C-alpha cells in the first residue's frame, strides 16, 4: 500500500465575492484522507462541504492554502494538467446524476476510459463487469432518459470508479433518490470500497449515509468542527 495520503490539504481557504461582499465558504481546512477510506463530510447547507469537495476535485482553486491529490500539488497545476488529473485520478458523482443525455449508459460509463484511449473491447469488458457488480447489467444500451433515478445514479457511480481513480468525490448522491434506491446505492459504494479499495469522500446531510461512514467530518461555517473515526465499519 501506498503510504502517501490520497488527499492532503493545508490551511485551505475559499472566499467568494458576492455583490461586493466577501463570503468565506471554506476557512482554513487542513486534513488528510488515506487511500481506501470511506469519508463522509456532513454539515448543514452553507457549511462549505460542496465547495470543499470542488476544491479536492480541482474544479475550483483555493483562495489560500494548498491541496495535494496523490502527492500532486493542485494549486501549482495548469488548467490542462488539472483536466488530466481529473481524468486519471478523480471520479465524480453528483446529486443530479449528470449523465450525458446523448450517450447510452455504457457510453456514459466508459467515457473516461475512451478519453484515455483504451481499446474498445477492453472498455466494454470493464464496464460490463462493473455493471454486473453494481446490479445494472443489461441496461448498457439505454439512454439516461430511459433509466430510473437509482439506475442513473449507479451508472454515474460506474463512470466515476471505472477508471480506478485515487479518489471518488460524491456530492449528495442520494438526495434525489427514494429510500430503497438510496440504500441499494450505498451498498454498492460500500462494496466497491471494501472489495476494490476505492476511496470515497461524500458531502451530505443524509443521516443514512452518515451512519455508514468510517470517518465522519462535521463542517460548520466552512471549518472542521469534529473529525471522528470508527474502528469498525458498519455492515449493511
Amino acid at each position, binding site marked *: 500500500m501506498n503510504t502517501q495520503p490520497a488527499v492532503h490539504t493545508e490551511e485551505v481557504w475559499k472566499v467568494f465575492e458576492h455583490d461586493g461582499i466577501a463570503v468565506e465558504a471554506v476557512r482554513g481546512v487542513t486534513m488528510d484522507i488515506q487511500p481506501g477510506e470511506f469519508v463522509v463530510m456532513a454539515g448543514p447547507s452553507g457549511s462549505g462541504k460542496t465547495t470543499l469537495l470542488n476544491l479536492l476535485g480541482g474544479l475550483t482553486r483555493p483562495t489560500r492554502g494548498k491541496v495535494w491529490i496523490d502527492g500532486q500539488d493542485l494549486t501549482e497545476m495548469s488548467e490542462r494538467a488539472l483536466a488530466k488529473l481529473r481524468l486519471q485520478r478523480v471520479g465524480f458523482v453528483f446529486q443530479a446524476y*449528470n449523465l450525458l443525455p446523448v450517450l447510452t449508459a455504457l457510453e456514459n460509463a466508459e467515457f473516461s476510459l475512451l478519453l484515455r484511449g483504451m481499446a474498445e473491447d477492453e472498455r466494454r469488458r470493464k464496464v460490463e463487469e462493473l455493471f454486473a457488480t453494481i446490479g445494472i447489467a443489461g441496461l448498457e444500451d439505454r439512454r439516461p432518459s430511459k433509466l430510473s433515478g437509482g439506475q442513473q445514479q449507479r451508472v454515474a457511480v460506474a463512470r466515476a470508479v471505472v477508471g480506478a481513480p485515487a479518489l471518488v468525490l460524491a456530492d449528495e448522491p442520494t438526495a434525489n433518490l427514494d429510500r430503497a434506491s438510496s440504500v441499494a446505492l450505498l451498498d454498492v459504494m460500500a462494496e466497491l470500497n471494501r472489495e476494490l479499495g476505492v476511496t470515497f469522500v461524500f458531502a451530505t446531510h443524509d443521516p443514512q449515509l452518515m451512519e455508514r461512514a468510517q470517518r465522519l467530518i462535521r463542517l460548520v461555517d466552512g471549518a472542521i468542527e469534529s473529525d471522528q473515526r470508527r474502528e469498525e465499519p458498519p455492515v449493511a
Partner: protein
Amino acid sequence: MTKRWQVLPRLSWRNVRRQWRRSLLTGTAMMLGVAALVFSRTIGDGAHEDWIDSGVRQGSGHVAVQDPGFRASRKLEHRISAAQWEAVAGALEAPDVAPYVERMTSRLEVLGLANAPTAAVPVNIVGVDPAAEAEFSQLGVEQRLVEGRYLEPGDRLHAYVGRRLADRLDVALGSRLVLTAQDESGDIAGQLVRVVGIFRTGVPEVDEGLVHVPLATVQRWLGAEGDITTVAILLRSAWDVPRVLRRVRARVEEATDEVAVLGWREAMPELDAAIKLDDFWGYVFNIVLFVIVALAIVNTVLMSVLYRTREFGVLRALGLTKRETATVVFTEGMMLTAIAGLIGLALGYGLVWLLFRNGLDYSGALEGDLTFSGVVLDTVVIPVYRGVQVVMSLGSIVAVGIVASLYPAYRATRIDVAEAMKFEA
C-alpha cells in the same frame, strides 16, 4: 490518443440530432441561404453570359484585332496592313488557339454622315462581309429584322439601317440615301446606297447610329481596296478569353508590335463596368444573407451551450480540457451548417433545374427593352452551372460555420465548472 478525438465529434453529432427541432429551424435558414446563393449565381452567370454574348456580337467580338491607333482615332489611316494581319492570322491558326475560335469577321469601320433630303444624321458606317457578319452580329435575325432583309453576298450598293435612323431620315425600304465620309486621302466622299433592310435592336444608340454596307463597296468608295480596320473574333466561350489573349499576344509580339489584340473588357469598358457592378450587387446581397444566417446559427448554438452548462461542467469534471469542450461545440455548429448547407446546395440546383432549366422569363416586368451599357438584356435568362459556383457555395458554408461556431465555442470554455454543477435538474 487518437480515440479521444473520435469521441468529441460523435458527441457533437448526437447533440445536433437530439435538438432536431432547433437544428431543423436553423438548418432551414442556412438551406435557404445557400439555395438563394446558388439561385443568384446560376441565374446571374447565365445573364452575364447573355450580356457578354450580345455585347461582343454587336461590338467587336470577344477578341478584336486593330491597329493600335484605331481605337482612339477611328480614322481610316489606322487600318490593318497585310503584314499586321498575317501575324495575327498565324497566331489564330495555332493548334492551342484555333479550337477556341468560333468564328471571325473582318470590318472596315468609319464615322460618317447619312444624308436624306430632310435630314443628316451622324452614323457609324460598317463595311461587312455579308455572309460572315450575318452569323456574327446576327443583326438580320427574325427578332431584329423589321422590314426587308439583311445584306447578302453579291450585294453592292445596299445598306442595312436601324429603325430610328430610318425614321429620322424619313426613308423606307428601297429609298436611297447618301453616305458621306472622309476617304483614304482625307477628302469627303459620298456614296449613294439603297435601303434593303431595317433592323431594331432596342438600343437607341445602335438603332439610330449604325449602317451596314457590303465591305467591297466601302473599300472602293473610300479608296481602301482590300483593307480593313477591325477583325472581330468570337470564341466558343467568354471564359476562354484570357487564355486566348495570352497565347495570341505572345505569338503576335514575336512577329510585330504594331498590332493591338484587345479583349472585350478593354474594347468595351462600359460593358465590363456594368457586369462588375452587377457582380458587386450579387456579392453584397449574398453577404447580407449570410450575415443573417450566421446570426441565426450563433443564436442556436449559443443557446444550446447556455442550456447545457451542466453538461459541459460534467465533461470538464470528467477530464476534458477547455479546448476539447470548445471543440465539441464548434463541431456541433460546423456539422449543423455543413449538413444544412449541402442540402441547400442540392435544393438550390434542384430548384433552378426544375423551374428554370428552360430559362427564367422576366419580360413580364418590362414593357420596353432594358439596356445596360449599350446591350439589350435578354429577358429570358438560361441558368448556367459552373464549378466555381459550387466552390463559392462551399466556401460560404464553411465561412458561416466557422464564424457562427466560434463565439459559442468560446462561451463554452468560460463556464465555471463548480458553478455549473450546483443547480438542481
